[in-house]
C-alpha cells in the first residue's frame, strides 16, 4: 500500500512540476528587465504601451460580440432541440464539433477564400472575425447550454409558462434564459478566455488584436513577452475561477476542453 502511495505522489509531483516550472520561469524572467535586480519594469513597459490597451480593448470587443452571437445562435437552437426536434440533436452536435475537425488555420483560409470576392466581400469587416470566433466557440457554448438545459426541466417550465399565457419570445427571454444563467455565463467566460488571446484568426485576417500584438512584441522585446504571458495566464485563471465560482454547488461543474492553439 505504501508503495502505491509513493508512485501516486511521484506522478502527481511530476505533473505539478510540468505545470508550474514554466510558469515560475516565466514569472522570474518577467521580473528581470532591470539588470541585476528584480523589478516590475517589464510590466510597467507593457502597461505604458498604448498599443497594449488598443489591442486588448479590440479583443474584448470581439469577445463580447462573439459571446452575444453565440448566445443568440445557441440558446434557441439548443432549447428547440431539447423540446421539439430531438431528431436534429446529432446534426446539431456534429456541427458544434466541427472546429475540432477544421482547425483555426484552415477555417480562416476557407473564410478568406469564400468571402474575398464581391458580392461576398467580408474580409475587411470585423463581422467575419466575429463569425470565425463564434465557430471556434461553438463546442464550448453548446456544451455549457446543453448541460444547463439537462439540469432544468425545460418541458415543464415551458408548459407552465404556456398555460399562463406566455408567448414564445416571453418564454425564451423571461423563463428559459434566467434558468440557464449559470450555463450561459460559463460558456461566455470560456469564450472570453479563448477569444482574447486568440492569434490565428486575428493574425491571418490582419486585425490589430491582442494575440498578434503579443506575437509582435515577442519578436522585438525580451522581457515584456514574459510579462504578457503571465498576465494572459492570470486572465485564463480568472476566467476559470469565475466559471468555477458561478457554477459552485452545482453537480458536474463545467468541464473545460482546450481551445485554439
Amino acid at each position, binding site marked *: 500500500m505504501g508503495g502505491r502511495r509513493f508512485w501516486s505522489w511521484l506522478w502527481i509531483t511530476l505533473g505539478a512540476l510540468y505545470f508550474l516550472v514554466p510558469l515560475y520561469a516565466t514569472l522570474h*524572467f518577467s521580473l528581470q528587465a532591470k539588470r541585476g535586480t528584480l523589478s516590475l519594469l517589464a510590466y510597467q513597459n507593457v502597461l505604458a504601451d498604448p498599443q497594449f490597451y488598443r489591442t486588448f480593448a479590440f479583443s474584448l470587443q470581439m469577445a463580447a460580440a462573439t459571446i452575444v452571437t453565440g448566445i443568440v445562435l445557441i440558446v434557441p437552437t439548443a432549447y428547440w432541440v431539447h423540446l421539439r426536434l430531438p431528431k436534429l440533436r446529432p446534426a446539431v452536435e456534429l*456541427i458544434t464539433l466541427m472546429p*475540432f475537425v477544421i482547425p483555426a488555420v484552415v477555417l480562416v483560409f476557407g473564410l478568406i477564400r469564400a468571402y474575398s470576392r464581391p458580392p461576398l466581400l467580408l474580409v475587411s469587416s470585423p463581422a467575419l472575425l466575429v463569425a470565425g470566433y463564434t*465557430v471556434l466557440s461553438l463546442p464550448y457554448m453548446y456544451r455549457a447550454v446543453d448541460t444547463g438545459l439537462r439540469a432544468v426541466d425545460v418541458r415543464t417550465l415551458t408548459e407552465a409558462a404556456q398555460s399562463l399565457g406566455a408567448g414564445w419570445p416571453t418564454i425564451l427571454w423571461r423563463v428559459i434564459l434566467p434558468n440557464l444563467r449559470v450555463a450561459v455565463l460559463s460558456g461566455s467566460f470560456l469564450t472570453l478566455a479563448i477569444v482574447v*488571446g486568440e*492569434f490565428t484568426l486575428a493574425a491571418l485576417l490582419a486585425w490589430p488584436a491582442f494575440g498578434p500584438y503579443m506575437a509582435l512584441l515577442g519578436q522585438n522585446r525580451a522581457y515584456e513577452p514574459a510579462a504578457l504571458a503571465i498576465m*494572459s*495566464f492570470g486572465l485564463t485563471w480568472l476566467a476559470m475561477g469565475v466559471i468555477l465560482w458561478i457554477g459552485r454547488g452545482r453537480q458536474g461543474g463545467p468541464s473545460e476542453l*482546450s481551445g485554439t*492553439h
Partner: protein
Amino acid sequence: MPSRRVLGDWLGVVPFFLFAVAFIFWPAMALFVGAFRDAQGGFTLANIVALFQPFILDAYWLTIRVSLVTAVGGGIFGFLVAYAAILGGLPRGVRTALTTFSGVASNFAGIPLAFAFIATLGRVGMVTVLLRDVFGLNIYDRGFNLYSFWGLSLTYMYFQFPLMVLIISPALDGLRREWREAASNLGASNVQYWRYVALPILLPSLLGTMILLFGNAFGAYATAYGLTGGSLNLIPILIGQQVRGDVLHNPGLGYALALGMVVVMAVSIAAFSWLQSRTSRWIRRGA
C-alpha cells in the same frame, strides 16, 4: 395546421443552420473545390498529386511526428497523473486541484505558452541556465533546440497532458473497485488484473483520447508560430504562410494542403468517437 406547426418548429433552428452553412460548410466547400481546380478554373487532380512532392511530404511527416509524440507521450503521462489522483489513494483535494489546473493548462496555449517555454527552455531560459550552471549540462551543446522537433513537442505537451487528464478521468471513474476485487478473489495478481481486465476496459478510451490529442497537435498553429516564428516546416505553418501570401505560387496547392489536413482531422475525430462510444457502452451497461 400540422404543416404550419412543423414549419414553425424548423424556423427555430434556421438561424443556426444558416450560420453553419455560411461560416463552416461554404468556406470548407470553397477550399474543397479550390483543391480540384487549376489556374483556369478547370477540374484537375494536379494539386492533390503535387502534395506528394518531398517538401510537402516532409512537412506532413514532421507534423505527424510532433503530433504522434505529443499524443502518445502526453497521453501516457496524463493517464498516469490522472490515475494517481483518482485511484492512487491520495486525498480528495489532489483530484480537485488537478482538474482545475488541467482546465487552465489545456486552455493556456498559443503565443503566451510559447513565451513561457522560451523563458524556461530557451537559450537563456531558467531551466537551461540551471542545468548549465548547476549540473554542468549545456543542453544546447547536446543538440537540444527549443525551436526544433523536441522543443516543440515539449511545449505541446503542456496542453496535451492536461487535456488527457480531463478526458480520461470519467473513464477512470468508471473502473469499478469490484472488478479489481473480483479478479484478485479469483486468484489474479495485480499484473494479471491490469493485463486482462483494466487495460482492455480502458484501452478504447486511451486510444481514442490519444487520437484526439493527435488531431489537437496536428492543427495547432499559434503555439508553433509563437515559438518558431514560422521557421519550422509544419503543415499549419505552411498553410498560414500560404494565407499571408501565395508562397507556394499555386493557390490550388494551398487548398489541397488544407484539404489534406481536414481529412487527417476528420479521420482522427471519427476514430475517437467510435472508440469512445465503445467504452461508454461497457461502462454504462456493464454493471
